[in-house]
């Protein structure tokens, strides 16, 4: 129940005790021990709720044997409040160093991770469908706008205002996108001015068309703003947010870089096991029933269908890469996850185009990323 740490610290672990009376009973029996005299006591409590009187009695119990209560650790919010009001330091050690192994967890894809993040933080992440729609819209207005501009041209000729307009439009087409954007804005504004000069029937017609193309506020939005919707950028930023904390350069990275590497050029079949205290590179498929265990990274130039365990020595930054990730189980350091049921196909068909995938740990969960770029 209790262990001695450095600096005269004495840890009393009562995390498994559920009631206040039992806590005091257990504590008093521990404090009877001579070892506990003249020490700083670090009291670990579970989810038990203690009131002010109970905490005070614990404090006096400890001071009674010439020791002092240096800090406590509790899962209960109630106890934490009371302890703080009494001036006792509350440590939150329980949240550190505890990695819950969840064998039932299927490994996530980057998209699933994004979705969960979206739910948690309300990040403005676009779903795939929306993204596609927004790109669909782009091409149409460009084509349509040409038509409209041409029509405007002809109408401008009729109103004997043709020369300047035409030149402007040609210029706009020739220049680069950024400058063109401004030009286009100009033209749209000028078109709007033109519309004011038209007869009321034509005005409505053109305005309706412009509404269709530019949305309800044609003066404000240009074609190029539509072409790159802001949300897409935000989505990328959101993805970067996930990646950035992983890219800090630490001891583990150095370890991975200095590991020796085993290079295997063959198909790994059912029942075959490869163990190596370093990185493993396999040129070939890893069939179901095979096991690959490496202290560093595992890279499979083929279909990975067996079990892969990267960072078997505890390196949390180890990664598993494969041309096609179909692993029955992925393990990295002390995290592990099984293949999602949605991927439980009988076998993977070999095609000429695979998207390489990479698995790594993010927030103690194994996430599989598709490497598109």
């Amino acid at each position, binding site marked *: 129940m209790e262990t001695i740490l450095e600096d005269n610290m004495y840890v009393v672990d009562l995390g498994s005790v559920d009631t206040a009376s039992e806590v005091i009973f257990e504590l008093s029996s521990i404090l009877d021990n001579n070892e506990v005299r003249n020490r700083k006591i670090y009291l670990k409590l579970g989810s038990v709720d203690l009131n002010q009187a109970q905490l005070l009695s614990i404090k006096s119990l400890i001071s009674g044997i010439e020791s002092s209560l240096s800090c406590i650790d509790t899962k209960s919010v109630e106890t934490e409040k009371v302890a703080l009001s009494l001036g006792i330091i509350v440590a939150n050690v329980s949240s550190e160093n505890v990695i819950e192994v969840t064998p039932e967890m299927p490994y996530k894809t980057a998209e699933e991770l994004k979705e969960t993040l979206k739910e948690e933080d309300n990040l403005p992440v676009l779903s795939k469908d929306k993204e596609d729609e927004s790109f669909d819209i782009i091409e149409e207005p460009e084509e349509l706008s040409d038509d409209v501009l041409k029509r405007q041209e002809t109408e401008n000729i009729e109103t004997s205002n043709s020369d300047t307009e035409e030149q402007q439009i040609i210029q706009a087409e020739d220049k680069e996108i950024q400058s063109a954007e401004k030009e286009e804005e100009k033209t749209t504004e000028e078109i709007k001015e033109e519309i004011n000069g038209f007869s009321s029937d034509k005005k409505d017609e053109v305005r309706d068309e412009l509404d269709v193309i530019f949305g309800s506020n044609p003066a404000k939005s240009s074609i190029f703003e539509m072409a790159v919707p802001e949300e897409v950028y935000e989505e990328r930023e959101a993805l970067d947010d996930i990646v950035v904390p992983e890219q800090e350069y630490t001891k583990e990275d150095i370890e991975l870089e200095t590991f020796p590497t085993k290079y295997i050029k*063959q*198909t790994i*079949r*059912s*029942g*075959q096991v490869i163990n190596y205290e370093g990185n493993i590179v396999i040129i070939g*498929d890893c*069939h*179901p*029933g095979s096991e690959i265990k490496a202290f560093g990274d595992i890279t499979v130039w083929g279909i990975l269908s067996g079990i892969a365990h990267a960072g078997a020595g505890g390196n949390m930054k180890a990664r598993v890469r494969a041309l096609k990730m179909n692993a029955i189980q992925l393990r990295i350091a002390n995290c592990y996850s099984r293949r999602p049921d949605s991927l439980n196909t*009988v*076998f993977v*068909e*070999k095609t000429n185009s695979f998207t390489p995938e990479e698995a790594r740990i993010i927030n103690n969960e194994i996430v599989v990323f598709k490497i598109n770029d």
Partner: protein
Amino acid sequence: MAGRVIVITSGKGGVGKTTTSANIGSALAKNGHSVVLIDTDIGLRNLDLLLGLENRIVYTLVDVVEERCKLKQALVKDKRNPNLCLLAAAQTRDKSSVSAEQLKKITEKLKKDFDYILVDCPAGIEQGFQTAIAGASEAIVVTTPEMSAVRDADRIIGLLEAADGIESYKLLINRVRPNMIKSNDMMSVDDVVNILSCQPIGVIPEDTGIITSTNRGEPIINNEKSLAGKAFMNVARRINGEEVPFLDIDEPKDIIGKLKKFLSGLKKKGKE
């Protein structure tokens, strides 16, 4: 010229190792080669049944190993083809009766007198399997288009790759049902080949004639109307490297094509 020792194995039971051994052996003998079949499935012998030689067995493999008889005495000549011999397994003993070294000695001796020595391997990956592959330099891995059989074949191929003596191995896909493949209910030959990344040496269609031939003790290659028999004949030719080159999968496809035609023809006839 020294004979070739080929082990016929599968890992999973019931995929047709013994049927394949009997038929390929008979086919090779029919083509004029001298062939000896060795049944290493000691305690569960079946090869003699398939060849209809059960009543002629006097001495077995175990008797040869334990030196109760000479090797030539134990070889049972086939009743149809004098080129074919059988070295039967003992039914009263178990797999531990013969060691890998002992079988290797026997195959070395037989190599001098025969063109082909086919070793019928027991199911599993234990001692019986290790014994059977000991003397062989080539292997035929029999599988069916079922996931369990394919997985076991994968395991076996892994073990064969790790084994010392085996120089090459080929895949034989048995009990293929073209109409099931057509309706996507069965893995196709290409699928199996892709999964195992192993060259096929033949594709045998499912044939009810196999059951009757087994019961009668007559290899199906002697039935000229049977598609499975023809397929086995082709495999034998391919093993010999004469008619069809190795690694050729087109001919089996043709057989399937013919089979499809044949089946669709039957359906049309039925409709008329």
